[in-house]
């Protein structure tokens, strides 16, 4: 009796294969996000173009994950932690696919921003935020591989930092727009970029929650800590 392995080794191979796909997706998404932020700061249109074209591969992987999961459910009738693994893999793949879209959108806007005057300090702030979110994503996926609830919980907590970074950027862009209305177009694009990166952080949190579900059988019940919301007063 070896509780780590199925009696059917083909079942183990199938489960490992589908997890490998989702991790490959994660790698592509992390790279896309970091490349898109670099392209924005360096005004590197070629790199931005590469990110835009790369999204198709991420989408294709998600489809492959879904096909493989459907096959696993049909042929292997997974139960208990195997079932939770299949369900969580599908959720994680769908989250990663959305993150890929956000990176692609960032790249698209960075090409447009390349034709506009530079907003002082903005692209650096965006890149720092992208790096932080990329780290969350990486930690969430590492937590998934190791079924590490502690690390997953940390990701949930750290998303608050991202929310705060977003709020700070939001105020910064607002100031730029109020100072000089000619900055409005660029700042609107930058704001969407910041918002999208903030959304990637939320997806990292979703993945972390799936890790907790996979390991324990239930989603964390407590409300996730939220950073300062941009809702009141001058903040818009």
């Amino acid at each position, binding site marked *: *009796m*070896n*509780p*780590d*392995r*199925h*009696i*059917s080794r083909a*079942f183990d191979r199938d489960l490992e294969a589908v997890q490998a796909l989702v991790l490959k997706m994660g790698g592509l998404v992390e790279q896309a996000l970091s490349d898109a932020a670099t392209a924005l700061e360096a005004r590197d249109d070629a790199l931005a173009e590469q990110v835009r074209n790369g999204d198709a591969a991420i989408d294709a992987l998600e489809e492959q994950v879904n096909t493989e999961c459907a096959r696993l459910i049909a042929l292997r*009738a*997974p*139960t*208990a*932690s*195997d*079932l*939770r693994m299949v369900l969580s893999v599908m959720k994680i793949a769908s989250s990663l696919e959305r993150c890929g879209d956000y990176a692609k959108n960032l790249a698209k806007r960075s090409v447009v921003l390349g034709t506009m005057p530079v907003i002082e300090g903005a692209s650096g702030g965006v890149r720092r935020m992208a790096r932080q979110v990329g780290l969350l994503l990486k930690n969430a996926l590492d937590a998934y591989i190791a079924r590490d609830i502690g690390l997953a919980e940390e990701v949930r907590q750290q998303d608050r930092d991202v929310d705060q970074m977003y709020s700070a950027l939001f105020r910064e862009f607002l100031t730029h727009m109020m100072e000089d209305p000619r900055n409005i177009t660029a700042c609107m694009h930058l704001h969407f970029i910041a918002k999208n990166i903030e959304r990637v952080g939320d997806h990292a949190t979703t993945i972390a929650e799936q890790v907790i579900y996979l390991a324990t*059988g*239930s989603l964390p019940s407590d409300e996730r800590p939220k950073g300062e919301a941009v809702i009141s007063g001058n903040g818009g």
Partner: protein
Amino acid sequence: MKDTNKIEARRVQVHYGQNHALRDVDVDILDKTVTAFIGPSGCGKSTFLRCLNRMNDTIPTCRVQGLITMDGEDIYDARVDPVQLRARVGMVFQKPNPFPKSIYDNVAYGPKIHGLARNKAELDEMVELAIRKAALWNEVKDRMQAPGTSLSGGQQQRLCIARAIATSPEVLLMDEPCSALDPIATAQIEELIDDLRAQFCVVIVTHSMQQAARVSQRTAFFHLGSLVEYGETGQIFTNPRDPRTESYITGRIG
């Protein structure tokens, strides 16, 4: 009445000679519910099932200790007649085993020996009702005098179910009732089991975990003579609490 305990077992131990087959089984089996017993071969699930209608009494080396009650009455009490008990606790076996008699006589046998019918008309009615409940009536109503063995395997198994419920038992025990049947006949029996739970307390032993998942509301997992985990079927199959249950239902130990 849901959530009433039909059968309660406390510290049940079974020995076959020197072999300790069942250890300290505590379980409450709900009325009007399908309870599935799962576990690898030799885990004690069939042994426990056979305790519930005292089938083990027929094995000379078998010793049953502990307390098993039905509706609060000790079924191993000296005043309980095992034959009468088995009229209240029907049983269906792995292989369909109709008597070498007509379809009618197979089902009429129980009510006859227990003297449940006052006359032929009443007996006819009982037979028809049991066969209807077993979802077999439309297939056999025109050939009630044909031998039970002339039916297909799936029909024979439904005939055995009709025979088991003809005495109006309160509990129906099924020991691998579908393992000799094809998938269509299996689906028909499973559908029937789902109907039967409106009236009976059904306990089924099955090697097919998917079958346990499909037909039961409660699942008990036995391993090496112990009841490892007992709970709501959905919980057992999505989030079992005991690692041994997890290993078994995910196909890691057998």
